[in-house]
């Protein structure tokens, strides 16, 4: 990216940019600024609203800055047991699922990148086929049910751990970065396949491990479909299912009558519903949004590797 730009700016010193190019540049910046506002404002608004007084939030008079700054919304969010249960479960599913998926994906991707592995094209073909054709929802449900995985945590850890797309990315990465000579040299020294993999390949592939780990972690953190169809116990619900309850079905904890609750507090809680929604969005999304800019280069790398051989 840099190399494409530098020579151009060098040339600029010799030849004056024509007028139409300067107009063009101006348009580029204006359009980008417009897009940035469009993307950023909704995110900014969520944060603003989550810190604001419920009265202003409910009447929709907020636009640019918090009004009646308060942490009340967050107090409600953190006193809601569902958030804690969901958070805990999601962390469990994300950590174990990511580890599992990482092992399966990197090992399979490496094996399939080896040209001297008979049958690798057949395996690859069978995998790619599943990207375009499948049994459908009910047959899938029946398989999971047949395995006795309905309403188990293990189901949510396993499902989503292996994706053919990730395997293709890993395979392309190894095909393009590991020189054949390295392997030959190691094998001449009497190194076997598994030792070569664990002590030579893995240390050389931190970039791809980071990419896949991030893809998997984001996938697990945001997943809700499998939990929705397979999990019935509330204490096994991941965060996203509770978020759906709070954000979309308007079935809030405060609507269940608590003993000793008078009409006044009930009305106050009713007023809090919208603010709580904003708070919940911030609390659930913040971890990823904060971590991601530091890892951005890896994400981008993953897409680029995937693009070489999509």
């Amino acid at each position, binding site marked *: 990216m840099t190399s494409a730009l530098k020579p151009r700016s060098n040339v600029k010193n010799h030849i004056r940019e024509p007028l139409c190019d300067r107009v063009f540049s101006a348009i580029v910046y204006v359009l980008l600024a417009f897009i940035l506002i469009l993307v*950023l404002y909704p995110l900014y608004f969520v944060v603003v609203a989550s810190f604001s007084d419920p009265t202003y939030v409910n009447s929709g008079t*907020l636009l640019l800055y918090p009004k009646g700054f308060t942490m009340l919304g967050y107090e409600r969010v953190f006193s809601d047991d569902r958030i804690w249960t969901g958070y805990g479960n999601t962390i469990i599913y994300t950590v174990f699922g990511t580890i599992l998926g990482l092992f399966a994906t990197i090992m399979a991707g490496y094996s399939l990148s080896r040209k001297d592995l008979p049958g690798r094209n057949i395996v690859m073909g069978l995998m790619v086929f599943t990207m375009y054709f499948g049994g459908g929802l009910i047959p899938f449900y029946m398989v999971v049910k047949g395995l006795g995985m309905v309403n188990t945590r293990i189901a949510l850890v396993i499902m989503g751990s292996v994706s053919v797309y990730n395997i293709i990315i890993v395979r392309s990465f190894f095909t393009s970065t590991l020189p054949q000579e390295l392997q030959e040299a190691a094998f001449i020294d009497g190194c076997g396949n598994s030792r070569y993999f664990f002590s030579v390949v893995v240390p050389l592939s931190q970039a791809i491990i980071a990419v896949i780990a991030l893809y998997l972690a984001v996938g697990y953190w945001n997943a809700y479909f499998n939990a929705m169809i397979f999990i019935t116990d509330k204490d096994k619900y991941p965060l996203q299912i509770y978020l759906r309850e709070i954000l979309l079905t308007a079935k809030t904890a405060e609507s269940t009558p608590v003993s000793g609750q008078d009409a006044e507090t009930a009305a106050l809680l009713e007023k809090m519903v919208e603010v709580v929604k904003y708070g919940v969005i911030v609390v659930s999304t913040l971890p990823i949004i904060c971590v991601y800019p530091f890892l*951005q280069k890896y994400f981008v790398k993953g897409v680029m590797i995937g693009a070489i051989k999509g």
Partner: protein
Amino acid sequence: MNSTSVLPKEAQAGTLQNVKARQRHQTIKLMKRNVALYLFLIPAVAYIAVFHYAPMYGIQLAFKSFSPAEGIWGSPWVGFKWFQMFFESPRFWQLFGNTVILSFYSLVAGFPIPIILALLLNNVGNLKFKKFAQTITYMPHFISVVVLVGMISVFFSPRSGFINTIIQAFGGDPIYFMGEAKYFRHLYVWSGIWQSMGWSSIIYIAALSGVSPELHESAMMDGASKLKRIWHIDLPTIMPTMVILLIMSCGQIMSVGFEKVFLMQNSLNNTVSEVISTYTYKIGLMQAEYSYSTAIGLFNNIINFTILILVNRISRKLSGSSLW
């Protein structure tokens, strides 16, 4: 080839057999030497076998009348009964239409925007600003579907949403966006674009970074403006990427993502928001009509697969780029 043709026929066959035997021997030797690699494949292959291939066995349900007592294998065959039922059902055209319109709209509106964004970013001279813009535009990609739909519903809420605040500031009346069927598609498509345009542009930015700077330099010497250089240098470079991505999206034309549609659905917008995948879910898991649901799912899958193959073939003929 030429040297073997000189030999008599039997000898020729003999050498051929020899070659084959030697090849087989070689293969077996390789397989033995690489046993560890096959072991590496086991977890992923097992996953694919269980969660992708095992369900394909259940496809036969689409041609059977499933009864839980008899299981998948024991249930009686009914031929194309379920398909016929679906085609003749009064909801068929509505579901079909909703699915195609929604994904076609997404494709037409969503396909060019990442390309434009990538070209814009590629023309930013200030590297810091470019990086900043990339970070911001990628961000929504990480928001979960649940949160995204939650955001839509609070932003567009008639009472407290800021969209309606703005509408009212300009003298309009508040609109209940989530409650009116005619807004559903626009909300669905444009929120999708908001979420994914940055992320989808990465692939084009990567392709654009492969453009050789000499091309731009020599074009500039010849007096080509930026716009001309984009048109004649940048666009042709990313064309193969565009074609591949277009083929892939065409193959998905019948598979509107279940999750977001399902979350955005309510009784008020059901006439436009019910698509085949959500219908499969409702018939199958909520009404427990296993066979009927499987048949609808299979119909959808086959159409997708056929379109993918067709588009791929057409593109290979026309442009030389194809998926396989």
